[in-house]
């Protein structure tokens, strides 16, 4: 029998207030600025929304025990439910929240991976190019895919074609299905489908090119 123990810090229940009022106001203001195109507030937003995301994740852990499956979609949805459910949050459109959530999750993740790599002097995280023969077997094992490279590819794509990149970001980092992206981005289903198809091929090609270059340099 394996002893299990929960940390009290993980046991904050749903009934407990998540944020104080001033944080709510901050979020409201920041989200508005972000929606209006002020990307400089992303950091502050991340600092505010990240604890919510984390708390939700911890709640999921508590409810489901060790059978933990953190799906980004559920995470984002639950975060939305919580934040939108509170008063004075003017953005009722779930789609807008998806957009910022996907961006935030992406940022948090990439920072996290970077930090982990620095801690380990880059030695312990193993990356596999997409043209690796065992790619499919390996991706199942977790963070074997080069998320950093994916992030960089996505940034390159965003510089040239922001709409396509946005679809990919929602798909990959918020785990949204095509229909959800359609709502979120207010685009036609056909366009989202084409964007995704292109983004997928382009990222895949870009990633394997990067992997090949890295192999040669290494």
């Amino acid at each position: 029998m394996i002893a299990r123990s929960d940390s009290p810090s993980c046991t904050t229940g749903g009934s407990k207030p998540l944020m104080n009022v001033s944080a709510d106001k901050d979020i409201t203001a920041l989200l508005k600025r972000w929606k209006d195109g002020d990307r400089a507030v992303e950091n502050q937003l991340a600092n505010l929304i990240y604890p919510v995301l984390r708390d939700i994740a911890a709640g999921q852990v508590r409810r489901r025990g060790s059978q933990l499956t953190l799906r980004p979609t559920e995470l984002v949805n639950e975060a939305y439910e919580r934040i939108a459910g509170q008063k004075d949050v003017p953005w009722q459109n779930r789609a807008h929240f998806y957009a910022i959530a996907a961006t935030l999750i992406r940022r948090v993740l990439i920072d996290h991976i970077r930090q982990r790599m620095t801690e380990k002097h880059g030695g312990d995280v193993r990356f596999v190019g997409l043209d690796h023969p065992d790619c499919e077997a390996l991706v199942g094992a977790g963070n074997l895919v080069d998320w950093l490279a994916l992030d960089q590819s996505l940034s390159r794509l965003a510089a040239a074609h922001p709409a396509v990149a946005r679809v990919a970001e929602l798909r990959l980092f918020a785990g949204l299905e095509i229909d959800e992206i359609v709502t979120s981005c207010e685009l036609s289903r056909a366009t989202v489908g084409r964007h995704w198809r292109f983004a997928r091929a382009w990222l895949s090609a870009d990633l394997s090119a990067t992997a090949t270059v890295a192999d040669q340099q290494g």
Partner: protein
Amino acid sequence: MQPDADRIARLYALFDAALDLPQAEHDAYARAACGDDSALHEELCRLLAHERAIAGRDTRSVFGSLEAVLRDAMPDAVHAGSQLGEFSILEEIGAGGMGRVFRAERSERGFTQRVAIKLLRQELTNPDLLRRFSAERQILAGLSHPGICRLIDAGALANGTPYVVMELVEGEPLFEHCDRRLLSLEHRLQIFRQVLAAVSHAHQNLVVHRDIKSSNILVEAGGTAKLLDFGIAKVLAGAHAGDGTATADRYLSFSNAAPEQLLGARVTVACDVYALGAVMYQLCCGLAPFDLQGAGAAQLETQILHVPPAPMSRRIAEASERIALNRGLGNLAALRRASSGDLERIVQKCLRKAPEERYASVEQLDDDVANFLACRPIRASAGQRWYRLRKFIDRNRLPVALGALLLVAVATIAGVLAARNLAALRERDRAQQALSILRNAFLSADPSRVSGEAVTVRAVLDAARPALEESFDAQPELYASLASSISEVELAIGLSTQSAELFDRAADAARRGRLDPGEHFHLLVMRARALYAAGEYERAQGSLHEASALGVELTPEWEVTKAIVLLRSAEYQQAIVLLRHAIESMHTRPPEDEWANSARLWLANALRSNGDNAEALRILEETVDWHHTALDPQHPRIALTRIQIAVQKRLLGRPEESLSDARQVHADVVAAYGPRSPFVAKAAMVLGNALITLEHASEAEAVYREAISIYQEILGDTHPDTLRTLFNLAEVIVADPARRAEARDLYRKVFGAAQTRFGMKSNATILFRNSYARTLLADGEAAAALSLLVSAGAQVGLDVADDSNRSNHIALLRQAFEAVECAVIASAPNPERPDIQAAPCAAAAVMLARIDAES
């Protein structure tokens, strides 16, 4: 590449349009649509190819799942101040490959216990792992030893993250501890013995550590060493069982993993012995057994599986002074002396590739470390076949391993040549490094220089040549440097002619390029050595001269080579002076050193040639004593020197001693290397000679035949050693009146082969001819003897023959001249004896007249 908006838009449109068409038309469409823009065309085709590859596949299978990363990133359940079961987390004290470590405490009945909690990484989590963990926990918790960090509890967080609660050890890692305190080797070994005691305790409880490395050994301020993470590697490795060993050992430290761990074979105490050897290696000499910096996985694997670790003494030569200072020693030479000999043997025995060749238990290893510290003889030297030599003679295996290494080297060279830019310098260092690994492997593998037939290696070396040749004009110094390394390898495996040729080219390139004078000097000395081995004595002399003209200080290597060349021209005294000086300047070098060793053997040789047999014997005996200070008693060098001692005693007129020495060394080498080794042949030959001296003919014949059959198998039918032994055999047989024909037949064969192999000017050829002729004469075949002795070759040979061969030849010639009755024939040819020709008689008459005139 940074795509611009227009280009992406265009690509997008083309890609979209293409996908509306049937797949078969994609190519044609892409060609037509892109027109002259070949870059765009290429990019489009790439996109289409990727689309075909991933269409219909799940997003997660293409880009991977975010979940694991997310899970890892999100819940930070354990942090300072949080509670884990009955333990309060105080602070994070470290993060490593396996996970994060926290300091924690629990209070129980007024007693506070401090512990370390190690949280394993999320990726390592799966239900199987947890199950295994709980199975192991009991056993691990049962390990109670002051040197083992005790396992207190293990479990899993709610999210499945496994954790281990352990005794809190406040210390620093072994190497840091020793280095910071400048601990001496003795002191280091005493601490190491604590580790051995701990591992031994675990082994007695049937627990193998599997991942012993310096960072798992902490030394507390009071000097107590504690071993961490016992058994955890097993749980982790087991979690990946069945999905390939590479993954299984991903979390094990690569440098200390034993070959069988890499191969996924059963992990036993031998793995721990290996890892302990690796730790001890670095503890003593400051460097890991293998230089893993910058090596690729395949290269690493080759090294761990096939390449014996370089002796510590050799590694120390390349190390920084700091390493010696950290051990309280004044310089590297002192460290090298301290870590050679028994210490080296102990470490090497731990690091053997085959588990069964290592210490059978940690206690045995500890015994030897204790013996070493007490200056007692160690176990590692007793009754052990000499490992690397055995590896070498095991022909099927070594060439394969070295072949693989060579391929790496060749590939690197090819890379260098392709680069041809500034980066080439760095690349050259890498290539040089690869080659020096090789060179060391060869030098240590074949000290006896009896191979020559390692076909695989040779083929790879040949393959390296064309790539190398490309740099001859453009980068002469690069060429000189690499070619010189390859030549050394060729020389080491006995391809002396080939080696000399390549050294010539290298010297040529060195003259044109601006090679470092020291390196240039070394190259010329090695070329001289290769030329000597190839029988080109004058050119060897020239190369030495060229080297001395470089203005670099003469090295002992130069002096030894010069002395060898001088010996050829019988300038014994000069050679003796040079060799004595060279030995003096190399007095700090260990017996593993090729040059230091051969200088002593050549000195004995020179003394013998100079008639000073007693001094030659003294040098040889001194050399064996010196060998025993550092080499395994079964080391071929010792066997070869003991064989020389037997020879020397016979020459000193002590045949009984010689015989008993030869018998002993013969029995020893049979036991050590098996009955078919070249050393056995050499010993048998010398034993035969001693037997003959004491007139034990039939036993002599038996041992000669033994030697011959080995030589024929290993060296071929016409190798000098084969022919010499055949000749000795003939000398035994000829004494038996009933076997004259057999003896004559042997002489004829040996002489014929020598003629082809050594040429007419060789004293061996002349000696063989004389004996053959003598037998013919004794059997009444005077005419045949005469023809033989006056042949064109014989006349050439006579002018260069040494004194004894020359006088024998002349005596035989006179005998034959008379036996054939040449004087009679000259005046009146005998028509009844058509076999007696006038021509040989006439030639003999001319020869004898010339000889008389000269004397």
